């Protein structure tokens, strides 16, 4: 565990000192500021606009960071041969990969939390807005979505190039947000009598990550009911942890017998 933590801390330090981290953070801040301009233009809609644009900014930049930093992490270590020195120092490949994942998640989580704090401050101090428990819940849930995206990025980067890994990670993220539609499609197919295809789609649905359950943006903006609190606080986070663990096990299996170039 000590080795994993050492690698994670090193990954975090490297990532937060990288210019990309600041560029993404500055863009996110600009977008938050932009939400204020929009709020002043749209009379009476301040609260909704600030929360909608703010949460979208956190989502987009969290995703960009998880995907772009994530897919490069393992690749760069191989390219620059720093992984050789890490392995020569007695760390195993699985410790290396888990350390990279943890470091990446810490970086993304730090980014999300900082932006979340700024958004919270914004809604507290903006006269027509307020900090709701739902907004905090949305940021909390988003952290678990990012955990899964980080695991997906690490999985792809354990056997693929950064560009392909980034494309595949984005595809998984998109599919992850549409997987509920897949289930709906399967239901309709079953109704129309295509039971075989419906079953196939249902199986795929259970394999794909369901990321939409972590998206509470509409509920925050339109003050909608989110359903079971227990599911949001416990079940969905546990699902994210188990799903990420499975992805990391696959990544470790693929990585541990691989010949590095």
């Amino acid at each position: 565990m000590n080795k994993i933590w050492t690698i994670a801390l090193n990954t975090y330090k490297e990532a937060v000192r990288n210019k990309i981290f600041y560029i993404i953070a500055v863009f996110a801040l600009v977008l938050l500021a932009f939400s204020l301009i929009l709020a002043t233009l749209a009379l009476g809609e301040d609260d909704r606009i600030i929360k909608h644009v703010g949460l979208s900014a956190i989502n987009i930049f969290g995703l960009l960071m998880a995907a772009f930093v994530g897919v490069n992490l393992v690749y760069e270590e191989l390219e620059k041969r720093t992984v050789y020195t890490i392995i020569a120092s007695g760390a195993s490949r699985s410790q290396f990969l888990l350390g990279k994942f943890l470091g990446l998640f810490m970086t993304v989580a730090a980014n999300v939390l900082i932006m979340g704090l700024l958004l919270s401050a914004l809604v507290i101090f903006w006269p027509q807005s307020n900090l709701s428990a739902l907004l905090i819940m949305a940021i909390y849930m988003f952290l678990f979505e990012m955990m899964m995206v980080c695991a997906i990025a690490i999985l792809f980067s354990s056997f693929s190039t950064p560009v392909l890994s980034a494309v595949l990670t984005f595809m998984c993220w998109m599919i992850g947000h549409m997987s509920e539609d897949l289930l709906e499609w399967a239901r309709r197919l079953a109704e129309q009598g295509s039971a075989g295809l419906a079953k196939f789609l249902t199986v795929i649905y259970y394999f794909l990550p369901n990321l939409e359950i972590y998206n509470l943006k509409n509920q925050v903006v339109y003050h909608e009911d989110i359903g079971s609190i227990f599911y949001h606080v416990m079940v969905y986070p546990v699902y994210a942890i188990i799903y990420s663990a499975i992805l990391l096990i696959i990544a470790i299996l693929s990585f541990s017998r691989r010949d590095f170039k």
Partner: protein
Amino acid sequence: MSILRIQNLTKVYSKGVFGGKFRALNDLNLEVEEGEIFGFLGPNGAGKTTTIKILLRIIFPTSGQAWLLNKPLGELSELHKIGYMPENPYFYRFLTGQEFVMFYAKLIGLNHEDARKKVDRLLDIVGLSYAKKTRVGEYSKGMVTRIGLAQSLVTDPTLLLLDEPMSGLDPIGRREIRDLIVQLKEQKKTIFFCSHILADVEMLCDRVAILNKGELIKLGTVQELLSSGPAKYIVSFDNLPLEALPELQTIADSHQDISGIHHFTVNNPEEAHKIAELAMAKNANLIEFRPERGTLEDYFVREVGTHE
């Protein structure tokens, strides 16, 4: 005692689905003795880095076996006694030199206080104490090599694997690294050293192995390898009358006139003596008569050339 033993080590890469096979290393047998500086030479693609990667378990051999410190490869705990520095190291640019070496110190399980003491000592050894708070990205090439060496020493290794440690360094940087390697040998460390810079290998190494196209083509001490090559003799004179020159030139393999000093090069001692006698009979002053040993570079080019 052998600190590193390689037996029938072979590595074959597949070149895509229809690309066939590429044999990067073919049946390599080698032993490195404790306390020696062992030069591992070969042109690009000879299999040097492949061998090091197999030893570090970065890639896996197709067949064969190797023992490090008398243990078969793969016994992780033994890696703690091995230091490794990659070729053209490109380390974490955003960490300071001190943080960089600290990372490796903590990776081997040292607590913060012990790690800090060790890192300060290592930075002192490699002469980088003054730059410990500077980010590695701002280091010169020589400094990167030195911080790489500090990193490789964190485990207090008995065996150091150095892959092209002089690559890209200026003469002063090379000299500094050479001096450091000599110091490490004095501390009873075994150094397995890949290099293209043969002058350094000749100065530093006790024994060398030459690899070409994945095969070991020569193994021995630098002395043995050089004495096995053809010798040359240099005979030099001043005050040589010009009329003597044509006869001497027919005997010599080459002749140079540098500021009135005539240098003749021949391949055997008989011809060298003959030139000396003829010139001195014409009242020339003999100022130099010496055998010239070929350099390791001459030997390397000749050996690799014959195996092409």
